């Protein structure tokens, strides 16, 4: 079972945001989607997480179509949006229990899951702190823990380390590395070193189209560049010329 994206397209009033995107992401893979601002990364995530209907095309998410059966797809995935999306006046524990319950857990199960994730994400000593009192790093950790509490098979991380200091970013990387292989992770980020440290494969989008796909080594071979930054700049420049 895998994620099979077939000719996925989204247009807004004549402007193409995602242009006939086709690719396959394996189960348990850590896949990074790169691109400049406006490249179509967030729209792709919104389409795959059933927050938007595609104009045409489809994606089969571990056996279910985002067009035919979005409710079944929604049960398999969770999302950590670009903004942390934490309830401000709920405590850390209440935030986690709330998400667990809307995905079907009863009170006891939600509490157990919340305790487990607070332990895993180093949030136990802040269990009773309100969302609005957390630092940026803790808020990001909570955001990802909230996405994990439904035990998704696929998780979307939209720029999960934006605005974090070096230590908080490295702490979060370690958490993400621990998740690697257990679930399918689709990451969008502007931090290329993050992609180098975490991703199994990389897709580079430009103006809604997928311009390159492969492991870091494959992309190095394809472009003759040694660093991901140079690979990215070369491929997006080539795409601009085309």
């Amino acid at each position, binding site marked *: 079972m895998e994620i099979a994206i077939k000719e996925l397209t989204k247009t807004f009033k004549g402007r193409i945001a995602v242009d006939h995107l086709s690719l396959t992401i394996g189960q348990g893979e850590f896949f990074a989607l790169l691109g400049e601002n406006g490249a179509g990364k967030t729209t792709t995530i919104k389409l795959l997480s059933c*927050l938007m209907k595609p104009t045409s095309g489809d994606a089969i998410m571990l056996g279910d179509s985002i067009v035919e059966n979005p*409710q079944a797809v929604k049960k398999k995935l969770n999302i950590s*949006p670009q903004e942390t999306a*934490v309830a401000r*006046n709920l405590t850390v524990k209440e935030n986690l229990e*709330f998400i667990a319950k809307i995905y079907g857990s009863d009170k006891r199960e939600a509490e157990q899951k919340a305790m487990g994730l607070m332990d895993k994400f180093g949030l136990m000593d802040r269990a009773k702190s309100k969302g609005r009192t957390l630092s940026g790093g803790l808020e990001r950790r909570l955001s990802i823990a*909230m996405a994990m509490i*439904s035990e998704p098979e696929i998780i979307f991380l939209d720029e999960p380390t934006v605005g974090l200091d070096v230590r908080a970013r490295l702490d979060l990387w370690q958490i993400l590395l621990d998740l690697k292989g257990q679930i399918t992770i689709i990451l969008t980020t502007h931090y290329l070193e993050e992609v180098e440290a975490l991703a199994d494969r990389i897709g580079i989008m430009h103006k809604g189209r997928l311009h390159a796909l492969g492991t870091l080594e494959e992309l190095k071979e394809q472009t003759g560049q040694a660093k991901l930054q140079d690979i990215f700049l070369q491929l997006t420049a080539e795409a601009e010329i085309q």
Partner: protein
Amino acid sequence: MRALTFAERNRKEILRDPMTLLFGMVLPLLMLWLFSMMAENMPFDLFTLEKLAPAIIVFSFSFITLFTGMLIGRDKSSSFLMRIFASPMAATDYLAGYALPLLPIAFLQITACYGTALLLGMPFTIDAIPAVGVLSIISLLYIGFGLFFGTFFTDRQVGAMFAIFVNITTWLSGTWFELDMIGGTFQRVAYLLPFAHAVDASRAIFAGDYGAVFIPMLWVMAYTAVIFGIAVWGFKKRMRG
């Protein structure tokens, strides 16, 4: 079940905000007290507690609009709504989840305002019991406006919209003065909107004049249905991206 879980979260978000207590409870009670004192020096009977308390209860519901609108607006700007849109919740779960916690808050506003009016000297009437039912229906109108503002505007815009809304709901409702004192176009416009009808219905039910409740409540319920309908349509559209 999911709607109740979401309602519980929204109840906590609203009640844990000190602004809720300040604007939703303290301000209407303060106005009730101030205007009842002014009534002692007034040559006419507008500010008698029998007229003032039912109108101020309706006025207090304006803040329900603010709470609902701000909550939805903030959920949009923080992407919280995006997170829960990605969950298996249905559109009806969201709307029920936003609307349900406001009904107990409306009930608290009704009892706090009526209790204060009794303490200030308003005679007790058994008509207060059906009045709670009528006022609960009226509160749905203000909840609907909150859903409407929250759906179509950002949290910052909701604040600005509310400043206009609260002025319209008070000046065009006959809360502070009799509309026929001005008459003409002003009065006609006021009675094309639901707020004067809401105040009329509230005053009539507290006075035990049940015959005078029906027509104003028809206006209120018709507006409530339309506002809810537009909010639901807008919300579903937003859910579809």
